[in-house]
């Protein structure tokens, strides 16, 4: 496929991808805040004051997070919203990576693979450290 076609696909689908994930994340975050205000306002104030003193909750296990969402825990809904937001760059780079493989544009396959690996290694290093 020609370079122009590659560019056309990127310019058409990248904005759709960015906007879809962004809107989804914002809806989940807004829902999480409404749930917090409705069901756990005191917990929110306590957490806010604890954070002001540098007391963080720390790492949250993904399995536990899913359980808490099933229980309708507002804090878990907010956490998921933030995770969805961080999917924006990952999804965008992954989309480019797949497109360049399809186009056999190997220079850019290597470059996007490096960026993708950097994002994943960063997350794994954060989880480990």
């Amino acid at each position, binding site marked *: 496929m020609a370079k122009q076609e590659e560019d056309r696909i990127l310019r058409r689908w990248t904005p759709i991808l960015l906007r879809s994930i962004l809107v989804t994340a914002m809806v989940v975050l807004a829902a999480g805040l409404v749930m917090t205000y409705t069901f756990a306002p005191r917990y929110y104030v306590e957490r806010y004051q604890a954070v002001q003193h540098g007391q963080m909750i720390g790492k949250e296990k993904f399995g536990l997070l899913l359980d808490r969402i099933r229980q309708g825990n507002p804090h878990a809904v907010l956490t998921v919203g933030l995770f969805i937001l961080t999917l924006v*760059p990952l999804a965008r780079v992954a989309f480019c990576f797949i497109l360049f493989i399809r186009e056999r544009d190997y220079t850019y396959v290597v470059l996007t693979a*490096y960026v993708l690996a950097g994002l994943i290694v960063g997350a794994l290093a954060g989880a480990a450290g």
Partner: protein
Amino acid sequence: MLEILIDLLALAVGAGFVGALSGLGGGVFIVPALVIFAHMPMKVAVGASLISVVATSAGASVAFVRDGWTNLKVAMVLECATVTGAVIGAYLAGVVPNVVLELLFAAMMLQSAYFTVTKRGDDILTKGDPLAERLELAGEVPDLSGNLVHYEVVKVPQGGALMVVAGLMSGMLGIGSGALKVMAMDYIMHLPLKVSSATSNFMIGVTAGAGALVFLARGDVATTIAAPVAIGVTAGALIGSRVLPRVRVESLRAAFVIILLLIAAEMGWRALSRI
């Protein structure tokens, strides 16, 4: 709770609005706003800011990519450098004392103020260097009369080196480092200014995303702060981008510089008073 939420949303909307009008992004303003007005520790502000920067970059990039202002290939090449810097920077933010982060933030504010004052016009090249040609980085941009003007790109390694620094600062300080990125593309690689700004905006999402993933995975993002801040900064940036075409940004430039200098002074003073 409602009072806290309204305060956070107001700070975030204001930061996103001024960030969009100044072209420096919301991160530059939300970090000091959270530290100074909400009394948050620097690392909490950085974590919340990184998340919000991902959101504003995605929102602002949509139109720039669709309308052809963003040079996608330049972005993909330089993202290799910014992601490397951002992951290292986000790691360092976990071990470097808050005082050092605040001093670095003050220094970055001075750089942003300098950039705002010295923004220069386009210097379009018709011949690129071999590496840029091999990577097919050249592009086209419409001039004032709507005709497409071809531009070439040079000095990719030098631009990339500055991008590592931009990524490092982004991961450590929770900002998009847009001023450094635009400087690298405009001053060193000779991309047209509007292409540099649009491409920088597009890249900021990946740079901040790399840092945000490290912070989130490490458990260093305060959900109660980051969630309203992300919504507020995105809303503020959206309002700012709508207002932008109707205001004379040139006349606001002095105000932006004064705000940046005040932030630099306040953050620098806070850090130095604790040494």
